[in-house]
């Protein structure tokens, strides 16, 4: 059962969005999020939603998936909303309770902030839903490559991510095994209060850590034996290539940003 766990939230597919270069998707996602943060009226957010909806339709993902991504963050979003209501100063009073008055500015600010967070989560969800973890790491490595000039460990970071992804199923399987072994010796993982249960994890975590270190040691030797010597002069089996799709994507995003700017000038 632990074997069929899905990594991240990648939703396999073959849509135009799926086939875009991960680098371009990363860049466009960042542009989209920055764009959304500059919107300051409701029609602008409608535009952002329409654009997102269009992208999701093309990718063939259900829109529900995006909303699911927002769900775990609902408390943070509500918290920001309330905080903005209380602490933003404004002039136009909507109603007055004496100790606190709600102003129009505070309400607008609170709504925009909440919406920005929602769009931030949904925007990145589109990226992670349509890009496999491997592609994502590839894309990140390639994008960060210029930073290596400033001794930023781009290749090392990407390699670490790849290895982590590779070993997640292995370690999950191992956790399962150790858990069963400890249960066979009478360990109890299910009853007791929070502290008792946290304590019960110790006989699980210690062997897991020991074995993880042993695996790391083995892997390091195996990598060395296969001529690993860091990122310099390394080639890749799959070279990333920008295609026409990426051009279309970039143009669409440019169009969206232009619309927002024009709309902001007209209404704001």
């Amino acid at each position, binding site marked *: 059962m632990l074997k069929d766990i899905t990594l991240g939230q990648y939703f396999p597919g073959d849509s135009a969005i799926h086939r875009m270069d991960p680098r371009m998707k990363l860049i466009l996602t960042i542009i989209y999020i920055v764009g959304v943060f500059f919107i300051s009226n409701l029609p602008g957010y409608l535009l952002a939603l329409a654009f997102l909806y269009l992208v999701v339709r093309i990718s063939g993902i259900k829109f529900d998936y995006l909303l699911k991504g927002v769900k775990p963050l609902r408390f943070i979003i509500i918290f920001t909303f309330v905080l903005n209501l209380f602490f933003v100063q404004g002039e136009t009073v909507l109603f007055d309770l004496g100790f606190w008055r709600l102003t129009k500015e505070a309400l607008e600010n609170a709504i925009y902030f909440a919406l920005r967070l929602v769009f931030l989560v949904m925007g990145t969800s589109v990226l992670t839903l349509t890009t496999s973890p491997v592609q994502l790491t590839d894309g990140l490595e390639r994008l960060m490559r210029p930073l290596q000039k400033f001794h930023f460990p781009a290749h090392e970071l990407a390699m670490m991510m790849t290895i982590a992804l590779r070993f997640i199923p292995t370690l999950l399987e191992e956790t399962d095994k150790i858990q069963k072994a400890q249960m066979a010796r009478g360990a109890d993982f299910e009853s007791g209060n929070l502290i008792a249960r946290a304590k019960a994890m110790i006989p699980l975590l210690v062997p897991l850590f020991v074995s993880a270190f042993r695996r790391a040691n083995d892997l390091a030797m*195996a990598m060395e034996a296969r001529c690993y010597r860091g990122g310099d002069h390394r080639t890749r089996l799959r070279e990333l290539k920008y295609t026409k799709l990426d051009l279309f994507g970039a143009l669409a995003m440019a169009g969206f940003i232009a619309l927002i700017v024009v709309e902001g000038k007209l209404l704001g």
Partner: protein
Amino acid sequence: MQNKQDENRIIASSLTYTYPEAAKNAVDGVTMRVKKGEFLAILGHNGSGKSTLAKLFNALYVPSAGTVWVCGLDTRDDDLVFDIRQHAGMVFQNPDNQIVATVVEEDVAFGLENNGVEPKEIRVRIDEALKAVNMTKYAKKAPHMLSGGQKQRVAIAGVLAMKPDVIILDESTAMLDPSGRQEVMNTVHRLNKEEGISVVIITHYMAEAATADYVIVMDGGKIAMSGTPREVFTQVQRVRELGLDVPPMTDLAYMLRKNGVNVRADVLTVDEMVEEVCRLSSSN
């Protein structure tokens, strides 16, 4: 040297290795060679130095004294390390701990990527390597979905893609089930015969050693016995003293002879035993 190099893939001369802060030498004055196209088995109980020896062949360890030449290259030379590792590929014991990438074909490509091979050439070589180990249809699979034997074959493909002259298997079958073990052994035997790649297997399965061209038995870091499997295993008493077993059929022949049945002493495989028994029953 040039002439010798054509015949021998690995030459070790009074090879000695001591682990840091260890009192005893793990490998102690070993002199041996691996010939071109040879299938060599290194046996020994735990701590006999056989795994250390394997790591010396791959420049993972540098000799404390003595020398190893891999295809004529001295492993003590820092500049040659990556060339040596390309010539002598290594497959380790735990199939899970030597696969780096999240997709089979990318793992096979790992060594080639490290060596800066062009992407087009990488493609060709991984396709060949996966074909050679019969794993082509698993090229796009995630490694954790494969069986132990399949994972080891992927690891062999990763080594094979580098076009090595020697493949060293450091107890690579120890963690596999019998069918996985058979898969791996069949694969290396085929590569040895068809591609002429020299194979060094470190093992404690006598049945695997019995299929080799030449056997070396290690004890306390030294070579205790060496010869063809027949020469080594017929010395049943001596092999037992070194903490090892003999192949099951050799053992059976030994016991039969002890009880007065006149079979040959140098029986190694089931087929040979069948032949012997038939010979006996027809002569009676």
